[in-house]
């Protein structure tokens, strides 16, 4: 059925991930992240003085600009901007620099599925490169549910379009905390998608959704270790 994935990947196997910082010399922080063929470039400028009109001046403000690979900026880009902004609001320490604006510009270089997770990783790495204080890293994964009820992690574009339902999740990466408050194990962001018009794409039960969450969470730990290693090896220079 759908057991054969391109490149012989297993259902729980992720594509090779590469993440590099400081790719742009003039930005305050920048990073490029790739999940297989999907590549995203992120640049951070800030913190700059002043917030926008409707934003709370007691906290730092985050502004995201999403640039698609081609075409004009439309509603899907605005949606991505909103999602990314709220996700980053979760991980940044907003009280450290009140009344400032940090701009993050995300440029899609190539989209081969799992675009939002790739963008989240690139944005986090760019924030690290810029030295913006963060609570924890966001680690993100997308999974899709096939007709046969199988859950595939990190789908590429073809798989995304073929499948029944599609979820994108972001979790906080593991934290070594001084406070023994209890593990931080919530979900930062979760988005479910019906991909194409005309098809009924939703989960059969809520349990399918939770299964996706559990599988995603299980895959997060190795993923976050890989990301941390990549980011660390560069800062050692």
């Amino acid at each position, binding site marked *: 059925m759908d057991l054969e994935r391109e490149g012989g990947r297993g259902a729980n196997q992720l594509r090779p991930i590469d993440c590099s910082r400081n790719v742009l010399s003039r930005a305050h922080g920048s990073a490029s992240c790739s999940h297989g063929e999907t590549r995203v470039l992120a640049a951070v400028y800030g913190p700059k003085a002043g917030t926008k009109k409707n934003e709370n001046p007691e906290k730092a403000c985050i502004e995201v600009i999403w640039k698609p690979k081609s075409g004009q900026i439309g509603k899907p880009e605005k949606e991505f901007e909103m*999602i990314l902004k709220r996700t980053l609001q979760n991980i940044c320490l907003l009280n450290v620099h009140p009344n400032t604006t940090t701009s993050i510009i995300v440029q899609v270089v190539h989209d081969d599925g799992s675009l939002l997770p790739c963008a989240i990783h690139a944005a986090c790495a760019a924030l690290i490169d810029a030295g913006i204080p963060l609570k924890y890293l966001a680690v993100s994964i997308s999974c899709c549910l096939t007709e046969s009820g199988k859950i595939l992690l990190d789908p590429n574009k073809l798989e995304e379009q073929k499948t029944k339902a599609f979820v994108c999740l972001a979790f*906080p990466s593991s934290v070594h905390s001084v406070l023994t408050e209890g593990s931080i194990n919530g*979900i930062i*962001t979760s988005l479910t998608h*019906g991909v194409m018009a005309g098809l*009924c794409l*939703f989960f059969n039960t809520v349990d*399918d959704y939770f299964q996706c*969450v559990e599988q995603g969470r299980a895959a997060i730990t190795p993923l976050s270790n890989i990301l941390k290693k990549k980011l660390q090896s560069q800062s050692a220079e």
Partner: protein
Amino acid sequence: MAATSGVHDLSSEMEVDAFRRLFPLRFHERHLLESIRPDGGLLEKLETQPLCLTMLAAIKMEVMTPTVEAPEEGCIGLNKCLSGMIDLKELCLVGGKAAWMVYLDIYCLDADGALFDAALLSAVAAFSHCKFATVQIPVVSLNDDGRIVLVSEDNGGAKKEKEPVNKDKRKLKLNSVPFSLTCILHKDYILADPTSEEESIMETYLTVVLDSSFQLVSFNKPGGPGLANTSAIQKPTDLVTAELDSGDCVTLTRQRVKELQKILNETISDMEVD
């Protein structure tokens, strides 16, 4: 810590309204501790009609040529949650040449929080109303040039004989109807169906959309300062006791779906009588 105790001292002297303006978060948190909301409702009580939130939805239909990929289907302007509801093949007029395109306009007359829920509900209601009204898809016919013209009562048979493409006025058939609920997560509390004041203060919200057979259409939590624990979303149900905990989002949404279905059916049947 001195600041908080100062606030509590002040609160006993200050008027309620002033306290609400100056320290909105503390005002709401005090209420949360008592498990009530400022307007007197329970935390998890779902308002059956949103208090001050009014929306108007209108549906227009226009003829268009269908896309190459889907020559048998029509199109709905707003796709995400509604695509499962209507079978698009019903909207087809002439395969490959013409189909109905449905425009859905939603006007917000009065906004008091949870806009998405109200918008979805009004869109669903508008489509349901289409179902029962007699004037539905007007009769059209194919011109000799291959264009579609509206067959009106006036130009009866004077011109060339045109074959009406769809003879009778059809009604749209709805499959599973989606209903949604927005909840706010604040520390350990879940607030269902927030007002705009609550939304602006407590920024973490999530939206669950279930359809009439309780399948999950969409689960949307777009980031925000708080994290969603799995237990907040759905508590594991005990198979022995039939009653589910009221304290989680999916169960709240289920209750909401039942209430909304009942209200929608009542309203539609009232309208049909007219």
